């Protein structure tokens, strides 16, 4: 068997999988985006740019997504890093597994149920009541971007913690001894050794959380009260409620394009940051 033939045979399953799961649906979406809404809803073949011209009508959803997804990612990172650092470096190995399980436990319950808990906590009977009882003002939390942000951070934190934990856990402790040996105090060793070497984990975590957040719709729907909706909510609305598939497809295509651009830019940036190293895996 020639190498060439073998290569083709070996690649076929993966290529078929990619085609069926990724390319075909995308092609369908792109084709739909140039079509028209059928009278009874759904898709009717056409070739028009009208759907794209109308994207501005959903500007609020794009704006919310593009602000809250990065903000949520950064907030997740800021909370997850110290937590992961504690788990991987400081925590007593005896308790480590238990603590790690505690980080995952929320995943055992549906995000839907957990969001209900937050609706209560952020609603009139929850934290705001506590604050007003203490005489510290009368804040409104539920149905604000802030509430959505809290929900996002809460929901996605473990996805950020784990990759960072893994990269910190793998870090060779002797490198820190070498750093100390060469005259660096502990805090500077952290900045010069630990932090750079945990960057692959940070990059992976950010990518994971950011990409998933861009498509999020459940948390904004529940904690944003229809006021803070994401592109994901617009899609639910367009495909399931108003059944304007072509317009929904156009919104989806726009989201994919935005994601491609940001993720590519991000990868460029992290790669340059890592000095062109191949071993800094981003995913």
């Amino acid at each position: 068997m020639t190498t060439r033939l073998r290569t083709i045979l070996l690649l076929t399953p993966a290529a078929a999988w990619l085609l069926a799961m990724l390319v075909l649906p995308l092609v369908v979406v792109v084709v739909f985006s140039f079509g028209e809404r059928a009278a009874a809803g759904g898709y009717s073949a056409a070739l028009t740019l009208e759907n794209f011209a109308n994207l501005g009508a959903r500007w609020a959803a794009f704006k919310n997504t593009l602000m809250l997804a990065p903000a949520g990612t950064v907030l997740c990172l800021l909370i997850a890093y110290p937590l992961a650092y504690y788990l991987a470096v400081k925590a007593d190995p005896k308790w480590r597994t238990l603590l790690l399980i505690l980080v995952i436990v929320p995943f055992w319950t549906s995000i839907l149920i957990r969001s209900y808990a937050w609706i209560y906590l952020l609603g009139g009977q929850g934290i705001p009541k506590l604050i007003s009882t203490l005489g510290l003002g009368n804040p409104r939390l539920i149905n604000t971007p802030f509430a959505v942000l809290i929900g996002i951070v809460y929901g996605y934190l473990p996805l950020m913690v784990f990759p960072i934990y893994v990269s910190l856990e793998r870090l060779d402790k002797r490198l820190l001894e070498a750093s100390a040996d060469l005259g660096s105090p502990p805090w500077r060793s952290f900045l010069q050794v630990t932090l750079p070497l945990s960057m692959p984990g940070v990059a992976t975590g950010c990518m994971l959380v950011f990409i998933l957040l861009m498509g999020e719709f459940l948390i904004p729907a529940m904690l944003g009260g229809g006021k803070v909706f994401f592109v994901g909510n617009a899609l639910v609305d367009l495909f399931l409620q108003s059944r304007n598939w072509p317009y929904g497809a156009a919104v989806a295509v726009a989201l994919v394009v935005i994601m491609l651009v940001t993720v590519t830019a991000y990868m460029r940036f992290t790669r340059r940051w890592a000095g062109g190293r191949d071993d800094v895996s981003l995913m």
Partner: protein
Amino acid sequence: MGAESLTGADKSSIAELRGATKRFGAVVAARDINLSINRGEFLSFLGPSGCGKTTALRMLAGFEAPTEGDIYLDGQRVNDIPAHQRPVNMVFQHYALFPHLTVAENISYGLRQRRPKPPAAEIEAAVNRALETVRLPGFGPRRIWEMSGGQQQRVALARAIINEPKLLLLDEPMAALDKKLRHDMQIELQTLQRKLGITFILVTHDQEEALSMSDRICIMRDGGIVQIGSPRDLYDRPKNRYVADFVGKSNFFEGRVTSVAGDTADLQGAAGISFIGHAGAGIAVGQRAIASLRPEQISLSRGDGGVPVTVVNRIFLGEHTEYLVQNPDLGQFLILASRQAEAGEGNLEPGETGSVSWRDGAALILNND
């Protein structure tokens, strides 16, 4: 500073361990270590794996605080001074090079930790000098994983010596190198030490390495020091069987001490075979002891004037031939015959018989521990 420390203008010790003991729970990794390290010397810790060599080194570096006892550096007690403030550098067992930094960045790491930070031009010049010293000129921009094992070892060395430490600690630096490279590196390291005049402390379990490189060797066992001395001292005057066995090859014959006169003892071995030689410390008449005979001190001939033996095996080593011979009373032992000594006799083949003899005084009568 190199010349001065070599001529011995300053003989005072650069570092000292006083009664240093380190416990890890129930394990005593280092046991009451008393050692004074001379300025500019090349000292080795030699002993089998797990005998506490690394622990002793780590106490000097500041990575382990002694459970009991004190550590002194240049006259100052440093028990409570953290590693990053000690004027000591270490070449780690597996180098511990920073994978995210280039070769040059690794080497300059120590200088960049100084406050105030030296000017960039100065750092660059020092890095280039260090690269020259370890014979890696122009390798500065390389990545660590682009370097071979031997090259990484040189980078680790350069990273340490650039700081001009008072004490350079090397933890089995050659363990990961192949034999040829190891030998080259040993010579280089020794040359480097002479040139820089920095005090080197080498940890190794390889006796040849310790013997060929060190001014003094510290033989260790179960966390404690058994004997300290120059390679020649240890070879010629081992304190006990353990040292004689660890430093060079030796044959051991059990027996009873029949007489001690001055520093010479006579030991009656199996079948009344007598071994006369230097008596080790504490050897007394009547006690059981061992005679240590180096393979090269035994001569083998075809005649039957001495102790009869049968040749069991023969290994050609170039300039020397090593024989494994058997005597019904003494058991099996090794003989190292030089080519010259054998010239007249002709080689004995395995299975042939001959006889062995040794000079009076060639043996060492030692305690069997």
